[in-house]
């Protein structure tokens, strides 16, 4: 492998989310549910704010600190689940886990930029970085 293989991991769209995170910044209104999660083995942390109305995620925002993979994944996740039903959001999370195991995913759900993270499955040490935000989302919607 050479440095070119890094492009498998660090796709341009990932770097774009890392550099220009979407939905970054928690609203201080106190609305919705806030979930704190960290990856105890490496120190990455995320705070996720979710608003759910009548079973639909109406807003998803985050802040946190971590590597390019964890932060871009959080950005993509908030974008993807916004406007989805809880059921679909959880389904996407499960699809994302499959993707991290290297499985081909076949779905009608609009996964958006998330598929750019497929390359992470080839870097086992980094999978936990990518799944952190999704785990926080699962915890958040289950608390509703």
């Amino acid at each position, binding site marked *: *492998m050479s440095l070119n293989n890094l492009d498998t*991991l660090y796709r341009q769209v990932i*770097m774009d989310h890392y550099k220009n995170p979407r939905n970054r910044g928690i609203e201080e209104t106190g609305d919705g549910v806030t979930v704190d999660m960290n990856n105890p*083995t*490496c*120190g990455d942390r995320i705070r996720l704010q979710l608003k759910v109305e009548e079973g639909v995620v109406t807003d998803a925002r985050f802040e946190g*600190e971590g590597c390019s993979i964890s932060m871009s994944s959080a950005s993509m996740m908030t974008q993807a689940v916004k406007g989805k039903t809880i059921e679909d959001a959880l389904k996407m999370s499960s699809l994302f886990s499959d993707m991290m195991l290297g499985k081909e995913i076949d779905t009608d759900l609009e996964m958006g930029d998330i598929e750019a993270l497929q390359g992470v499955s080839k870097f086992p040490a980094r999978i936990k970085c990518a799944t952190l935000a999704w785990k926080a989302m699962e915890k958040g919607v289950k608390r509703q």
Partner: protein
Amino acid sequence: MDVKAIREMFPILDQEVNGHPLVYLDSSATSQTPLPVIEALDKYYKEDNSNVHRGVHTLGTRATDQYEGAREKVRKFINAASEKEVIFTRGSTTSINYVAYGYARKILQPGDEIVITPMEHHSNIIPWQQAAKATGATLKYIPLQEDGTIALEDVKATVTEQTKIVAVTHASNVLGTINPIKEIAKIAHDHGAVLLVDGAQAVPHMKVDMTDLDCDFYAFSGHKMCGPTEIGVLYGKQELLEQMEPVEFGGEMIDFVDLYDSTWKELPWKFEAGTPIIAGAIGLGAAIDFLEDVGMDNIFAHDKKLAAYALEKLKSIDGISIYGPEERGALVTFNIEDVHPHDVATVLDMEGIAIRAGHHCAQPLMKWLNVTATARASFYLYNTEEEIDALAKGLLKAKEYFGNVFK
């Protein structure tokens, strides 16, 4: 010191990772294992494997002799007064927990103090947090100097007549700071406190002498000093170990067992319940023989030279922050501007270079440094300046790669 000959004793180093020769710079996490240790383990399992201290048969005697022989090697290596003061444990963490349970909880009263530092590994923080909660004692921290060292005036100002236990690392696993243990021991003793030292990062790299340091407890791990995993040592002064309660109970550690009461064996076996880590201890003994053959003074000089070389090399990279004092042990902890340490570690891994990235089991220290994570390259007797050159080159690539991404 003939590093080329030493490297030949470590077969694991002779391999390619991701198409590049392996450059292993993570010995502070775990060191590699030389042939004499692998062969000692192999011989034990092929020829001598048996339980210790109970069999009348020949294999039982051989295993016991080798297990107790390893204890004597440890005693000599750290210059303890007696083999009664050398307890085999699972590692530094277990050693510290034994003291926090068996000694600290027995003597601590509400209002007493435990004094530690912010540069401790989690294994020398959490056992004391728990002991403080259980007894009503207070946990206090000696502040750090700006460069990540400890000033003796601050030790004097923190340790009081209420202090019963001081627990300090000998060498920091993040900053590389080497602490003045002998002087800290004196301050602790002047106030009637005992000193526990976490020696996990020191014993692999330097000669440590229990009689000279005059600390009361000292903990270290085999796997960071060319030995196998799952073996470590708790050194304790005999009079303190006599007062200390066992934490684990069962076979091996008993003298007489009655229906409702039992008595314990004498030291050191009172702390070694169950079938002990026989192969691990024998492997540790072989590691000590190996290190002494090379010479601890040679290893210390070599590691120090590498750390100084790395420090100089890394400092020349633009946008790098290096943590810890100039005078340091065998590691360099750093961050590169705009590149998260995990991303640095992945880029280096693609070049065959293994470093550590994360909080290094030292979250309070990360807070003190005002970072969430750092990258760390650590060195040992088998590392070379060429490997540090490879590291520096790899870091430039990481910078370039992420630099382009951000443009």
